[in-house]
């Protein structure tokens, strides 16, 4: 029976179930299939806070959201058009954030009385009228999976576990995605467990075929390929991209890479990725705490290596004192802050952007550092490289403000030609003649870097104030004033070395939206929609947060209104106000999840309207 095939241009799908349901693998594979048909996409996995919550509970729900389209996609989507719910709990937690009129595909086998109770339903939503506004497809996924595998030589449990691939097959049919990438994946994943591999493959195909044969869905969809730049692509999340960038920077600079970290969510991933890249010479140390992590990195930097440490809020708090040591000794040091919900332990698995002012001012005394922030998962790669370039050139700590959202979220990444990435030039001082540890490069104000072991350049660094040039301990009043000012100027000089801020959007816009970090995609999507709606709204997104780009003030003053949406209570706003005396207007929400594009659009609309009214 031939099914109706419709064209769509953009869909958000969410897979949700118990941690044991395998939704993360399913999501990844759906992403791969999506890539192959040439749609653009972005994904957002969401893990439960508990390690392994009891089965069927709402707090044990794991999910994977993906938005894909026939054109550029900037975010994993606000709320799903299609929800695949493996159990009642998965339905429960997602019901309030599902598109009105959206589609629900529910594994009805799991809607048992016990599971319904665990999820807090008093009656079966698949049977009462409560889902009235949605298109609901009840599918006995578990039973169908087992049925389809009745001849396979694997146990019942193993058969049951194939239900995610069965569901994946269904979704591939529904959105016209090929099965091959997933079949390939299964071959690799279960190379040594052939029977499991075959069972999963069979389930996958069965899921696909059953839709083709049976009346499960009256319709299926097809999305034309997006017009992506030609090239090779892979799906990448921020954790991997950050680590990769560091390894590449290490090779581009010829410097050893020493990354020391203490596990903390969501920073651990980057440490773990790097720990598995030993073949590239990356040294990772799991230290006893965050203080030792950063001081080890400082020792490495003094030695002449790239010293890196990564952490999240509570851990960054502990690095505060040592960061000042790096400021005082003017050593290159990279500190990753994978921001998460706080203060204190807060909501450790959730995202927010609340550490900007902490990165700027979170150290006693006057202690300027460079601050960078990636805009997307793939940008994490580039920011890592830029961090190493600036740290070593200016002999200063660099804080990279990443986010929980960027760590886990993924997007297609056009793979760069590594040979085209310029080398990072590091000129260690080797000549003893006229050497002083605090003599400064005229252009950068950087002091010389010495690889320990170099004869004739023996010197002692430390946290006490040093005389400029000579670098001996100094309590001289004017020297301290000078050094404070030099340290500040040095960081300001970086503004000469980075590209100017760019306006995206209409040149004649009255309103500009300024953002930073992982909200890039959300703001960009909102801006595009606003302009499609007839508003003239421009956008400036900052990857350099300290120093700010040198043209930024002038650029922002051109607009009648400066809007600053942030996942905090107004931190970039505060900075822009103080620096430029611009009455920046914030949109500030801290919910632990990324913005909805729709709420940003509403914000922009409201502010745009009030502007027109004047």
């Amino acid at each position: 029976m031939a099914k109706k095939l419709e064209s769509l241009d953009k869909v958000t799908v969410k897979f949700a179930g118990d941690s044991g349901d395998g939704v993360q693998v399913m999501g990844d594979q759906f992403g791969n299939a999506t890539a192959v048909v040439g749609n653009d996409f972005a994904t957002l996995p969401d893990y439960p806070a508990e390690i392994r919550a009891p089965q069927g509970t709402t707090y044990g729900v794991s999910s994977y959201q993906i938005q894909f389209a026939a054109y550029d996609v900037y975010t994993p989507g606000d709320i799903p058009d299609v929800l695949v719910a493996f159990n009642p709990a998965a339905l429960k937690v997602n019901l309030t954030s599902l598109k009105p009129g959206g589609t629900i595909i529910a594994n009805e086998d799991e809607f048992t009385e016990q599971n319904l109770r665990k999820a807090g339903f008093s009656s079966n939503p698949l049977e009462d009228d409560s889902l009235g506004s949605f298109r609901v497809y009840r599918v006995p996924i578990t039973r169908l999976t087992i049925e389809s595998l009745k001849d396979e030589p694997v146990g019942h449990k193993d058969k049951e576990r194939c239900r995610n691939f069965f569901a994946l097959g269904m979704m591939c049919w529904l959105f016209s995605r090929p099965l091959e990438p997933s079949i390939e994946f299964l071959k690799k994943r279960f190379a040594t467990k052939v029977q499991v591999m075959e069972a999963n493959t069979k389930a996958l195909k069965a899921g696909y075929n059953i839709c083709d044969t049976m009346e499960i869905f009256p319709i299926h969809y097809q999305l034309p390929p997006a017009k992506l730049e030609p090239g090779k692509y892979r799906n990448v999340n921020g954790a991997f991209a950050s680590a990769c960038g560091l390894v590449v920077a290490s090779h581009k600079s010829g410097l050893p890479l020493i990354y020391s970290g203490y596990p903390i969510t969501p920073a651990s991933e980057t440490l773990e990725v790097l720990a598995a890249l030993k073949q590239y010479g990356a040294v990772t140390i799991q230290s006893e705490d965050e203080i030792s992590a950063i001081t080890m990195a400082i020792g490495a930097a003094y030695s002449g290596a790239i010293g890196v440490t990564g952490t999240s809020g509570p851990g960054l708090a502990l690095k505060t004192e040592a960061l000042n040591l790096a400021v005082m000794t003017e050593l290159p040091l990279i500190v990753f802050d994978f921001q998460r919900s706080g203060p204190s332990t807060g909501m450790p698995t959730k995202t927010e952007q609340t550490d900007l002012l902490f990165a700027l001012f979170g150290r006693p005394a006057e202690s300027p550092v460079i601050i960078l922030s990636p805009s997307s998962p793939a940008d994490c790669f580039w920011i890592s490289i830029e961090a190493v370039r600036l740290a070593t050139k200016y002999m200063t700590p660099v804080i990279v403000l990443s986010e929980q959202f960027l760590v886990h979220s993924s997007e297609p990444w056009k793979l760069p030609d590594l040979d085209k990435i310029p080398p990072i030039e590091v000129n260690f001082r080797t000549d003893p003649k006229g050497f002083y540890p605090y003599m400064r490069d005229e252009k950068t104000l950087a002091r010389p870097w010495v690889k320990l072991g170099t004869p004739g350049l023996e010197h002692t660094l430390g946290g006490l104030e040093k005389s400029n040039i000579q670098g001996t301990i100094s309590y001289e009043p004017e020297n301290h004033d000078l050094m404070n000012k030099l340290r500040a100027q040095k960081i300001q000089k970086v503004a000469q070395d980075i590209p100017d801020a760019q306006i995206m959007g209409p040149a004649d816009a009255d309103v500009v939206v300024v953002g930073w970090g992982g909200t890039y995609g959300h703001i960009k999507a909102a801006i595009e929609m606003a302009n499609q709606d007839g508003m003239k709204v421009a956008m400036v997104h900052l990857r350099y947060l300290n120093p700010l780009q040198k043209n930024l003030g002038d650029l922002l003053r051109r607009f009648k209104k400066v809007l600053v949406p942030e996942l905090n209570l107004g931190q970039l706003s505060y900075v822009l106000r103080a620096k430029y005396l611009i009455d920046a207007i914030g949109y500030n929400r801290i919910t632990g999840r990324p913005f909805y594009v729709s709420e940003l659009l509403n914000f922009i609309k409201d502010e745009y309207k009030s502007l027109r009214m004047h």
Partner: protein
Amino acid sequence: MSVTEQEGQITYKWTDFKSDQDVRWCPGCEDYAILKAFQTALAELDIPREKHVVVSGIGCSSRLPYYMSTYGFHGIHGRPIPIATGVKVANPDLVVWVITGDGDCLSIGGNHLIHVMRRNVDIKILLFDNRIYGLTKGQYSPTSDKGMVNRTAPMGTVEEPVEPVALALASGATFVARTDAAYLKHLIHLIVEAHKHKGTAFLHIYQNCYVYNDGVFDDFTQRDVRDDRNLVLEHGKPLIFGKNRDKGLRFKDGMVEIAEFEPADPPEDITIFDETNLSLAFALSKLYWPRFPVPMGVIRRVEQPSFEELIYGQIEKAKQKFSTDLNKLIYSGDVWEVK
């Protein structure tokens, strides 16, 4: 500087390890003695000066790197050990020393001591123990005697002191030794021994703070009493002490007793000291004057691979096992092409 190159050998004098900075400890401070011993030991070692890195924390003692002509790093309070770890791991060719005080190493920095011991990073730790906070002007430290009156405990401290050697041993130390700053030769000897050891070496040095805790070690280190009140350890030799070598120690079931005997005729059951015997080392570390003589010398020495050795070993293994092509790294996921 006067370096003579003879057949590829460098010959230093201790003064070659002096920097041009004025030494600013209080007159009478025993830090001077340790500095001199350290410089002398380094001259003995005959390693190019630029290979030495001296890392310290904060405290009077931690000013030492400024007085050395080697590379030096004056860190922050309590953290010289991880800083030194970073230096060593980034460049294992360097000879890395840590200078620390009883506050620096045992109060704020106590945790790093534990962890460096179990890692066995090849760094050498010199703990200047004056049982007081010198730099901040006389508050008690973790090694201060219980009941000691000082600036933050005007009615006497209420805490039991911690024994650095015992702590190091419990944490898995592979080399632990102790001496007093006044025993110049012994100190130089132990610094050299510490350097010879591959792995973390911990050297506990009693150091008199002339200003805030003067004479605290006098009871067992004064010239006229030290032979009777110190127990100088020698591997493979019985635990005998006393000016006349007429006293010895017996360990059994965790208890220790002193045996007195005719100088030439020690009983057979005097315990033989063994550098590799952990429990014995621990028991020795808890002996104090006046009940017992204070053990001095190498208390423990065992061989074990060092941290950086194991790390780079794994890296080598990975290089043999996996491709080191950078493109393989970024192409490691599922890759597709858009035309």
